[in-house]
């Protein structure tokens, strides 16, 4: 649905996005993660045909960016970080303005559909200025959907919302996946990305890593099991080290951290070996790495690579 190749944007010679190559599949929720100033909003603006790339190319829904921008705008819906609503207009009037600008044929039906879907029907005639931030964000979502876009670009859609409203918005986004829409989600909220995104792109001006959270986790940390024993003896450690499928063994107090290639296949052999060595196993679990750990590791590695690059250039 979205394909970019070497997409680049520079403002007055300062590079905001560098050589972005990615493909977002139809019906996928794709996360963009990166620190402030990493270029996430610029990517969203380029894909919404709001700013023109200074290099590379992109095709959105079959339309070429820079050549068919009006067609791209028709199939894209956008939620910006600030809801950006007309405060003196009612919720209904706000949606009507956008439905008409997008050329929706049955404006009343579409407006009603999304006001109901986002639980704003009862307050449709109230000025938006009287709404809470959460209600405004829901209305911004309704506005982005009122023309039934194939692609939805969400820039920090839950920023500044309370936990309850965050959950409502997040569940709504999850529901959209079932409707076959392609969603690009920019977020600082790594938990949100973990819950919603099929794949993520970590970037800091230039792309750092792109994959599913699980694949990134495996690539960065491998797979480890933590075995808690009543007592760790030298005999047990030697027995585990002797197992050919054990890639690494760390020992901390009563716990053994064991790196394995395929825990599902190797765990039974490991347990058998431990029991044979006289170990009293209290628990066995796979080591968990949050998306936050993955993200921080990637950003640190990128910073180190950048410094190395700069040093070699000198």
């Amino acid at each position, binding site marked *: 649905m979205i394909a970019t190749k070497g997409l680049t944007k520079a*403002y007055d010679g300062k590079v905001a996005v560098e050589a972005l190559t990615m493909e977002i599949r139809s019906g996928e929720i794709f996360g963009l993660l990166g620190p402030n100033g990493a270029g996430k909003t610029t990517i969203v*603006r380029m894909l*919404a*045909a*709001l*700013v*023109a790339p200074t290099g590379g190319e992109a095709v959105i829904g079959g339309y070429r960016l820079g050549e068919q921008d*009006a067609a791209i*705008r*028709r199939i*894209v819906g*956008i939620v*910006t970080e*600030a809801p*950006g*609503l*007309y*405060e*003196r*207009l009612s919720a209904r*009037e706000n949606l009507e*303005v*956008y439905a*008409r*600008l*997008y*050329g929706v044929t049955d404006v009343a039906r579409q407006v009603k559909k999304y006001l109901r879907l986002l639980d704003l029907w009862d307050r449709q005639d109230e*000025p938006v200025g009287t709404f809470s931030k959460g209600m405004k964000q829901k209305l*911004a979502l309704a*506005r*982005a959907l009122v023309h039934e876009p194939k692609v939805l670009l969400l820039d920090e859609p839950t920023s500044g919302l309370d936990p309850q409203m965050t959950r409502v918005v997040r569940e709504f986004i999850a529901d959209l996946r079932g409707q076959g829409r392609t969603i690009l989600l920019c977020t600082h909220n790594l938990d949100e990305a973990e819950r919603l995104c099929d794949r993520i792109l970590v970037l800091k001006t230039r792309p750092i890593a792109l994959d599913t959270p699980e694949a990134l986790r495996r690539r960065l940390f491998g797979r480890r099991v933590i075995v808690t024993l009543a007592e760790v003896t030298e005999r047990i450690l030697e027995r585990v080290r002797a197992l050919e499928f054990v890639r690494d063994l760390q020992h901390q107090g009563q716990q053994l951290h064991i790196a394995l290639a395929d825990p599902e296949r190797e765990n039974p052999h490991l347990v058998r070996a431990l029991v044979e060595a006289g170990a009293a196993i209290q628990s066995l679990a796979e080591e968990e790495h949050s998306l936050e750990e993955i993200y921080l590791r990637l950003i640190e590695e990128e910073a180190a690579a950048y410094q190395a690059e700069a040093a070699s250039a000198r």
Partner: protein
Amino acid sequence: MSPVLVILKKEWTDLRRHHLLMLSMLVPALVFLVLPFVLAILIPLLDPSSLNDRDVRRMLELLGRAEPELKRLDPLVVLHIYIFRQFVLMFLLVPILGALSIATYSIVGEKQNRTLEPLLATPITTTELLLGKSLAAALPATLLVWLTFGLYVLGIRALSPPEVLPRVANPVGLSLIFLIGPLVAVLSLGLGVIVSSRAKDPRTAQQVGVVLILPIVALFIMQMRGFFSLNVQWVFASAIVLLGLDVIVLKIGARLFERETILTRWA
């Protein structure tokens, strides 16, 4: 519905509910409508000796020299003609202030409320957006001055001697209101668009109004002091100059009004 009409309708709905902005347009119109009646009718009524005031006598003399036929009329009638004519010129401030207030609010207000990005993400072209916003500013400002002038005419007809109205709503007066009025409204909104590209709040943007108000006030004072008298030739020459300025200012405004410029440099 065309995108221009959608923007126009949205702007007017918003404007109707922006009471402060409405008030800032209506108050000058009301002042310029009421003040000449106070000067022409109330003051001589309260103080009949004011007609013998040295300055007033001088003004009446000047007017009589420019239009000898006025010498045959009663001094009070000539005073009415003099005052009511002067204020027709002041009416031009109504479309200037109105168009400027709406244009600057409509653009800087969108910047402040961060509504421009979702709006620019729609298929609307920047020309349609600029046209919608320009019409939303110029039309009410022009209609307001026409309405005010209509009430002015009715007031003069009701409260002044019958000789006054034909000499106020004359070709000069009518062309000032119906020709120069819309042209200054367009100039004002064009300047509003340009200055809005840099200003952070509508009030700062509105300061550009001084550029337009000063020449009008200067003309008012010069005419009042008898330095010159507006005639049809002057008005039409001014219209041609204004038309040229309108085209230049609108072209600059349209060039500034580009999606990327608006988003990345205006915000």
